[in-house]
């Protein structure tokens, strides 16, 4: 028997059928690109830097759009960074030790031995929520990697790069983080995994 014509229509449209002003689907390639590769990383310009009154951090969560968090307070060596959507990160030496407003928040009881960035093996306890995990033993192994030239706004800085291998044996979680510091031990940029269910968090710090 001759099989008859059989077609599938697959159509991708993006139009507002209910509202009169038109929309089209020129956004689709952008959506697909961003879904696959994330948002483009734009360099910090001097104008943008100067437009902020206070110290701030450019933070990218996974492939998401970078957001700006403002330095809200410094309590001893704990820096609180807050975003307009309620996200709050608390960092110590550039390392995220507490979060609020993320899909999966964390709270690390940071070791007092880690007053500044230094090589070594550290053991701390961490609480995760969503799902709840209390008092897990977090192992952190910091190593100096190299010196590197780092462009901070319009200044080329001789920076030190450290790697951190973190793990929680109990749940079989292990990740590698990266920290870039200036000569005064101030964090310039970090790439951190802080929770098994969160993608990497990239932070660029801009102090004033």
């Amino acid at each position, binding site marked *: 028997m001759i099989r*008859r014509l*059989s*077609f599938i229509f697959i159509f991708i449209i*993006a139009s507002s059928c*209910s509202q009169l002003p*038109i929309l089209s689907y020129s956004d689709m390639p952008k959506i697909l690109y961003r*879904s696959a590769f994330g948002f483009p990383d734009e360099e910090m310009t001097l104008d943008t830097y100067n437009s902020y009154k206070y110290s701030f951090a450019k933070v990218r969560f996974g492939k998401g759009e970078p957001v700006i968090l403002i330095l809200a307070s410094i309590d001893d060596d704990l820096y609180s960074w807050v975003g307009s959507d309620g996200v709050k990160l608390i960092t110590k030496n550039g390392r995220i030790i507490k979060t609020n407003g993320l899909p999966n928040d964390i709270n690390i009881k940071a070791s007092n031995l880690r007053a500044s960035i230094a090589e070594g093996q550290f053991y701390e306890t961490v609480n995760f929520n969503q799902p709840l*995990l209390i008092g897990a033993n977090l192992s952190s192994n910091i190593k100096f990697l190299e010196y590197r030239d780092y462009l901070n706004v319009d200044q080329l800085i001789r920076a030190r790069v450290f790697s951190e291998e973190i793990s929680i044996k109990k749940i079989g979680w292990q990740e590698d983080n990266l920290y870039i510091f200036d000569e005064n031990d101030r964090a310039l940029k970090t790439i951190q995994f802080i929770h098994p269910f969160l993608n990497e968090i990239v932070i660029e710090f801009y102090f004033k």
Partner: protein
Amino acid sequence: MKKRFVLFAIGLLLHGQIFSQISEYIYPNLDSPSFSNYGTTGLIQMPSARFYEEGTIGFTWSHLEPYLRGSIIAYPFNWFEASYQYTDVNNWLYSEYKEFSGSQSYKDKSFDIKFRLIKETRNLPSVAVGFRDVGGTALFASEYLVASKFIGNIDFTAGIGWGVISGNSISNPLSELDERFNSRTIDSSVGDTRGGEFNFNSFFSGKNAGLFAGAEIFIPRSKGLRLKLEYDGNDYTKEGYLPVEQSSKLNFNLTYPVTKNLQFKLGYIRGNTLNFGFSFTGRYGTKDPYVKKKDPPKTIPNAAAFKILSAQKPRNLYLASLKHLRDSQLFLQSADLKGSEYSVTFTQNTHISYPRSVGRVVRILDQITPDSVDTFKITNLNAEMTMFTTEIDRAKFKKYDQFKMHSALLQSTPIYKGSTEEYESQEFQPPTNLPLFLSKISPAVRSQIGGPDGFYFGDASIALHGQLLLKQNLSILAVGSIGVANNFDRLKLLSDSVLPHVRSDIVKYLKQSTKGHITRLQANYFINPRDSIFFKFTGGILEEMFAGIGSEFLWRPFAKNYAVGVEAWRVAQRDYDMLFSLRDYKTTTGFINLYYKEPRSKVRIKVTGGKFLAGDSGIHLDLNRRFKSGLTVGVFAAKTDISKLEFGEGSFDKGFYFHLPIEVFYSKYTKGVAGFGLHPLTRDGAAILVHAHHLYGVTDQSSSINLLRDWDDIYD
């Protein structure tokens, strides 16, 4: 002693809870079921009783010789899975006539459904009943009853199957109930219709049924890796066209979730064949399912100064409202300050949630309006027709804002359908610069899959979208495309339909319109003469294949869950080049449309009855469900007074679709929709005119049900 016991009991309970949460780290993605090679949730070849949450859309692909299968899967409800498969059957030719389909292998379309009967509890397994390849050519037709139960980190599955899943034979237990279950006859070739019908008589029938079982073992601390083992229940002599050799009934598979959405799998099947596949699922039903919104309401700089100026004279308030609403993509159409009530009419095209747009209007007005105003009367307008009016108590809006108490606000907020005359009589009517031309350029793709000439044909083009607004309620909508590339050259199969070729000449349309074509050039005029009665008058090029004139009427009572519409069209078929010339075929088509929103399931039922484009008369049924995110999943089917033979392959018209708001992928609110529709067969029977701006869509917000559905967004 008693206190100690209570503390101990609480400790035990908490320990259980904490332990269960630790397991989510050790065995991540336990709640993301994996897929079988048949494209539905399951073990390796066998199905399971697992489901994704409602509002999930997925795609799966697997290669297991001699089959290569792609599947689209949707979950309209937590208890219902529907999937559509396309299978490349490598060991069978598309047809025995080389001049018809060359050496192309056979492509089979099939539709699977699964219903959950029992939800898993601590003691009971999840139980489901499912149907493979219903209403198709029945090459893989099977039915099954299956149970799945988690014990620790192992998800056990066992079931009984009929049809292809009857390899491990036992006598059909249903034969004891009725003799008709004894024989399995699949009527897959009624005359020349070749499939497309549901073989109800064959369900759960056959001399034998078969048992199957397996387990999905979640490997601890391995980021969700699973090992799947199963005792295959398929009888491979019953599947496909040629029997497939089976060396072992044990199948093995490793499934690795790269992310919560993306899984890869590698298996060893039938003791002789390697198998590879992947699946992608997205849970799009919930609010902001993909990207968290970072689009807060705007704060007006120097708002206090504007407030002082606005208090001096109403015109200052009107101008400030116009400016600041426009800055938030909310467009003031009229305003009127009377005593302590400030009435504002606006239109917008940014928010799919209408209450959110109202909330945004209130927030802007609250910043610039004198304190003497205590009520904001806000009316939404579309095509110069009032859609709804709300009266927001300013003090209560602010009071409840702190804790986002939208329900409390709702209790003191009248919502009703305002009159168009009231909007027209308001004091301030900002001048509009009409006519206004809006345009946009976008890429466009047309695809054809699964025809005898080849598996995929498509063209890419640049689409030009334009809209000329002559009046607020009179516009001309235009869509044209300039071709960039296509592979339609090899498309050659012509229609053999015995009905007027209203759709089946698609090959001619595609081939002769590749350089450039006009999809639509449609003039629309809308009026809302009274209450919930709406009219649309339309003329021009209405769609890809038809041009003409027509009108639509809709009665949509504001506070009811039903609506009634009538539409009538006089149309002529367009020439194949899809420009301005017409063919000889002319017809009158028209329908009565009945809409009903079932309150419990939230399913919108649309029944359309009337005369279709090919002159046949009948009923078109469309069911869809809209989720909180705006995702809409729907199915449709139509039956008219033509015979199955006249209709041809497929027997009757059917298909499914889903629409996903593109704001799901954005951190900002936007109103576009990405749609996917699947119409398995292009036949002439039950063909409906596809004109733009259906009144039911245009008046979507003129329904208290739709407003209440999203009322919790008012403080977004």
